[in-house]
């Protein structure tokens, strides 16, 4: 029997126990609104959202290697029962084999980035601009505190509204974007940038399991009128805290359309979709500000670039891609 419980505790258990594919964003599996497919006699879960005529899957199966094909086949059965198609987003390279075996078309759709904390330092010429920016923010009176959510929750909600307003009333994104609050808040870390008692910006960090354990620089927001360097100053303070704790890795998460490389593509990929991703990277800032997001990540001089993939059940498809956007509340 196939279970489709909306129970994120199953997902939390799966991402902790089976980080086989090393998905640095795996904590998104416990986002509110996700659905889960699990089999009673098989470890692991598939995380997804029904969206229009698609089932939009986040990551690959969070499961041990031997269980992954079985879960994917059960997911294909579920999609067929519902007369829907599967499109999977933020697959890692290690997820691809099962999808290729099932006839999916797998294409790179961006990359995620990670920094080794044991060797990281802001000393030296390459970081001069970044250091100056942080110093300017601190001279403005900014102080940075790690704090529980309760202390800042109300001001964070206000700041979020201001931030969305400054984006022309943009819709709040979900699914592939971190959250705060809910039953797993105690597993996240929150760093707040403050002027006096007024919240200026914040960064929420979520746990990363697997072979590069640490934290992921997840949801981050600042007031539209905040001085330059606020986010960088907050992140620097968080890095220093993590380094003091002996944390190995800081992940910066997925940036769509970035880090594209022909060498990262799998056999059978769509060259047209690959072309399209390059086009969105170069000229698609109005669709998604990938270059702006990448510029923030790049200034920390990342150690590892991890290609991320999309898998299409019936060949590369524009409406399937649009349904990924739709699952994120971007459409």
């Amino acid at each position, binding site marked *: 029997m196939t279970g489709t419980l909306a129970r994120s505790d199953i997902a939390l258990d799966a991402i902790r126990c089976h980080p086989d594919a090393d998905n640095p964003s795996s904590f998104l599996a416990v986002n509110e609104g996700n659905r889960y497919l699990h089999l009673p006699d098989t470890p692991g879960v598939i995380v997804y959202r029904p969206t*229009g005529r698609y089932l939009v899957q986040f990551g690959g199966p969070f499961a041990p290697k031997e269980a992954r094909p079985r879960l994917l086949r059960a997911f294909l059965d579920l999609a067929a029962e519902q007369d829907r198609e599967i499109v999977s987003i933020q697959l890692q390279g290690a997820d691809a084999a099962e999808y290729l075996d099932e006839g999916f078309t797998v294409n790179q759709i961006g990359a995620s980035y990670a920094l080794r904390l044991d060797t990281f330092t802001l000393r030296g010429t390459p970081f001069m601009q970044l250091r100056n920016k942080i110093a300017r923010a601190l001279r403005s009176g900014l102080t940075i505190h790690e704090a529980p959510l309760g202390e800042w929750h109300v001001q964070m909600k206000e700041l979020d509204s201001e931030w969305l307003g400054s984006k022309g009333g943009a819709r709040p994104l979900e699914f592939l974007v971190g959250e705060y609050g809910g039953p797993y808040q105690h597993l996240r870390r929150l760093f707040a940038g403050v002027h006096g008692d007024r919240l200026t910006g914040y960064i929420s960090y979520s746990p990363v399991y697997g072979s590069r354990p640490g934290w992921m620089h997840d949801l981050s927001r600042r007031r539209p009128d905040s001085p330059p360097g606020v986010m960088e100053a907050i992140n620097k303070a968080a890095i220093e805290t993590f380094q003091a704790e002996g944390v190995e890795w800081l992940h910066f998460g997925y940036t769509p359309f970035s880090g594209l490389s022909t060498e990262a593509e799998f056999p059978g990929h769509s060259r047209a979709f690959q072309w399209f991703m390059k086009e969105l990277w170069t*000229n698609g800032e109005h669709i998604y500000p990938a270059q702006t997001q990448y510029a923030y990540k790049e200034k920390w001089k990342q150690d590892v670039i991890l290609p991320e993939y999309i898998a299409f059940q019936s060949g590369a498809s524009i409406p399937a891609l649009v349904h990924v956007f739709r699952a994120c509340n971007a459409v």
Partner: protein
Amino acid sequence: MTDENDEIAAAGARVVEMLGACAEAPDDREVGRAADDALMRLERLLAVAPDDR
């Protein structure tokens, strides 16, 4: 070669245009089919083009 590049650019522009159309009407299967037709046309053009394009 220039004609071929122009053809690819035009086919690509059509894919971008159809992304917008699909986003406007995500439940419209006809629009979805037209978008995938545009992607297929680009695929055919790239199939005969050099790899480094």
